[in-house]
């Protein structure tokens, strides 16, 4: 029996029935990491130290027969922009290559309280800027489905670790597709929750008005289980939602009869590769056969989403990255003459190319002569996109589209900024701008064996509905 292939619920059951021990379980994941990480490079830090004692302590608790949470003893990993107390947190940047945080993120605290075991910290695009995981100070990550392909990004390490069995689940971050696009490229489930659903306390900020932490898992049930553990109101994050949080696993048993599912023609017809398009149309027929009604929706301003997102996210990123000055933490340049040159040399040497590009663009659009023309204009476009979705959700429960217009591209294929701009986030950025929840689920493979993902977009706090549809679809595919 390969332990790394068991779902969270199956693993938890085996642990509680004493069929397996926490020590055995952790060992099997660690062996997987030992075997695969050298090639895939999904982990920046592997938490070997003390993990055996920690596993033994958890096993002892299990042996005492207490009623323990479902994530108790489950091995997982976190994106390296999620702060972990006393554990290196680099954001895949030279700037933070030695940064040992003195505090913990809200999500890590929650997962530790549940008894989940942190295996390590995952590779990503530097400061979550990028969509191929090629912008990492710690080297690129390979797609476990095909080593010549990128895993997507920014949470490329998270998606590839989960897809290859190097962690049962992972938390990534999504600002414009950072969870959904790599999940699609690697053939796993990725959820970007509604803005405010998961506390951002201890998530190193990229573009604060869109950043969200979310789960990357092997199936929909695991996704619901992890979501239960990481959601909740947090006074330490002023954008945290003070709502009644449902049990997301309760949506795993519902059916989708009579549900209205919207499709946006532009997202299927325009730039989508023919194999991806076919699979999406097939998936819509399947949803229809399961009792859902497919309805066309109109989202005319979403074609401006890439442009608006590029401006808004660069503006916010440039402002967030201003804190890295070489004084209180992080890299400091070795030779400098005065304070001014300390700052500029530190930042010139500490940031990678993509981060610099965003700092320059962001500073430019926020500067006095250009603010109205670009930044303000982008905010207005964002409002129009929000309005479009509001209107559409008066008629439908969920909107589906391909997650990406194409499957995983080759390493080195899209290096320049222009390519990044046009390519694989075309369908994911609008949900980020509107703060909506959105999920990517695997729906098949292309002729080269590369995974294809379907994106489900839901209303604010509509995660339950997404899980319901995704679960039904997944059940159907398994028959």
């Amino acid at each position, binding site marked *: 029996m390969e332990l790394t292939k068991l779902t969270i619920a199956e693993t938890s059951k085996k642990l509680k029935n004493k069929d397996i021990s926490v020590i055995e379980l952790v060992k099997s994941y660690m062996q997987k990491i030992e075997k695969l990480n050298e090639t895939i490079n999904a982990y920046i830090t592997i938490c070997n130290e003390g993990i055996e004692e920690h596993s033994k302590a958890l096993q002892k608790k299990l042996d005492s027969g207490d009623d323990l949470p479902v994530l108790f003893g489950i091995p997982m990993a976190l994106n390296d922009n999620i702060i972990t107390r006393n554990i290196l947190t680099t954001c895949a940047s030279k700037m933070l290559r030695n940064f040992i945080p003195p505090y913990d993120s809200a999500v890590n605290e929650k997962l530790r309280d549940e008894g989940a075991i942190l295996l390590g910290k995952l590779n990503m695009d530097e400061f979550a800027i990028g969509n191929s995981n090629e912008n990492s100070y710690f080297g690129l990550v390979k797609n476990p489905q095909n080593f010549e392909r990128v895993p997507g990004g920014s949470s490329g390490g998270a998606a590839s670790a989960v897809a290859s069995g190097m962690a049962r689940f992972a938390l990534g971050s999504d600002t414009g597709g950072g969870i959904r696009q790599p999940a699609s490229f690697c053939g796993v489930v990725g959820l970007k929750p509604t803005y405010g659903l998961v506390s951002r306390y201890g998530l190193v900020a990229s573009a604060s008005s869109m950043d969200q932490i979310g789960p990357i898992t092997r199936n929909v049930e695991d996704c619901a289980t992890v979501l239960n553990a990481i959601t909740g109101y947090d006074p330490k994050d002023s*954008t945290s*939602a003070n709502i009644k949080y449902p049990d997301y696993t309760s949506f795993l048993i519902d059916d989708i009869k009579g549900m209205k599912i919207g499709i946006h023609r532009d997202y299927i017809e325009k730039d989508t590769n023919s194999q991806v398009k076919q699979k999406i149309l097939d998936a819509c027929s399947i949803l229809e056969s399961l009792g859902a009604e497919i309805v066309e929706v109109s989202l005319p301003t979403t074609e*401006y989403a890439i442009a608006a997102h590029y401006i808004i996210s660069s503006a916010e990123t440039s402002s967030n990255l201003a804190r890295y000055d070489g*004084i209180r933490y992080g890299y400091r340049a070795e030779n400098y003459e005065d304070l001014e040159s300390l700052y500029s040399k530190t930042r010139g040497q500490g940031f990678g190319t993509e981060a610099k590009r965003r700092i320059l663009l962001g500073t430019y659009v926020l*500067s006095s002569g250009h603010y109205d023309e670009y930044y303000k204009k982008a905010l207005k476009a964002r409002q*129009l996109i*929000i309005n479009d979705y509001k209107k559409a959700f008066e008629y439908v429960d969920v909107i589906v589209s391909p997650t990406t217009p194409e499957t995983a591209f080759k390493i080195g294929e899209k290096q320049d900024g222009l390519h990044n701009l046009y390519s694989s986030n075309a369908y994911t950025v609008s949900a980020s701008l509107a703060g909506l929840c959105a999920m990517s689920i695997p729906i098949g493979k292309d002729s080269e064996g590369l995974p294809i993902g379907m994106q489900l977009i839901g209303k604010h706090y509509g995660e339950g509905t997404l899980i319901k549809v995704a679960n039904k679809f997944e059940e159907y595919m398994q028959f």
Partner: protein
Amino acid sequence: MKVNEDDIRQVAQVSKLALTEDEVKYMMEDLQASFQYVADKLSALDTEHVCDMDQVTTNKNVFRDDVCKDSLEREEILRNASEKENGYFKVPKVMEGN
């Protein structure tokens, strides 16, 4: 709208980012292309009667009581500083004179 090398240098200076001459050139070409696309795209959108978007949540005026709480230990904070002295961060001299 055309970004030139001086624009890049000026923006790099206010962002406190030391760039090499090669980087200035590269960034200029790169931003010219991507920025052109973005600017053209957005200028075609009619936004005359649209309000600026402020935030996506329905949260309003999130306040907390102004009470003292334990903070992190000084040593823990200083642990990540590249230079420190006598419990302080160390920076190059900022003020002129003695």
